[in-house]
């Protein structure tokens, strides 16, 4: 039975400029907070970002070292698989190209891992070439804990569950290792423009 339409219900949606919004998405002016677990609160003097896995040696940055790296301002549209899109979001972050610079690997896949145990897998090629960052600022302010602060992945060309909050590192892997949601129904790759939300899409 098709759902009953409730007279006059619109929800609270913003305008969707043509071509900016992937299929099945609605524009929001808020920044909804979605989380798979409690907000971690790792003190900055204990924070680190590590690139490990299929590398000769692990590369690790403390917060001070991470913040000393060249950073960029990024303006991006972000798309959550729960159907909201937020346009023209502004971030500051360190490009994965910068973090991976000089690191040799034969790996073609990665797993981003976070405080609290969350993981998500992204092909290495989708993190390089100016497509991904470790972001530490949103809207001109330090990234709030509820939005993934002190630092999160930012991979805007994929559904936003691939932009792991509270990220602590990247494991480079020889084989693809589906992460927290990819093992439970969400699409392994997650391209919003092809509406790759779930397994088999």
């Amino acid at each position, binding site marked *: 039975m098709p759902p009953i339409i409730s007279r006059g219900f619109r929800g609270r949606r913003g305008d969707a400029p043509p071509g900016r919004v992937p299929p099945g998405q609605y524009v929001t002016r808020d920044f909804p907070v979605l989380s798979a677990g409690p907000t971690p609160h790792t003190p900055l003097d204990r924070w680190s970002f590590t690139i490990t896995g299929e590398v000769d040696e692990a590369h690790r940055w403390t917060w001070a070292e991470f913040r000393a790296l060249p950073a960029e301002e990024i303006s991006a549209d972000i798309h959550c698989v729960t159907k909201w899109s937020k346009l023209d979001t502004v971030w500051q972050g360190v490009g994965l190209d910068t973090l991976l610079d000089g690191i040799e690997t034969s790996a073609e896949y990665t797993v981003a891992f976070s405080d609290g145990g969350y993981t998500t897998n992204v092909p290495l090629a989708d993190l390089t070439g100016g497509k991904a960052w470790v972001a530490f600022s949103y809207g001109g302010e330090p990234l709030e804990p509820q939005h993934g602060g002190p630092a999160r992945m930012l991979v805007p060309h994929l559904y936003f569950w691939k932009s792991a909050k509270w990220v602590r590192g990247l494991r480079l892997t020889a084989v693809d290792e589906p992460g927290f*949601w990819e093992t439970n129904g*969400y699409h392994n790759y997650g391209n919003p423009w092809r509406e790759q939300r*779930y397994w088999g899409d």
Partner: protein
Amino acid sequence: MDELMLDGNAVAGMLGEVFAVEMTTATMICGNCGMAGAVGATHVFRGAGVVLRCPHCDNALVKIVEGGTRMWMDFGGMRTLEITL
């Protein structure tokens, strides 16, 4: 304590679509810490999907994703589920 956190009551409807019996009164045993408790007392988080976590150790007991006509459930974080028929 997370302001956004709900408890197992919040997923009663979703689970009720699948299970023929009342689920919030079912007892779960955590596969990580071994503590037992009602599903209604678990901590529920809504991310891309829904996660039920152990109120004692935060272990992810259950993951649920709803997508159109399909639903995926992972009970791997739970050791045992006891339901009253």
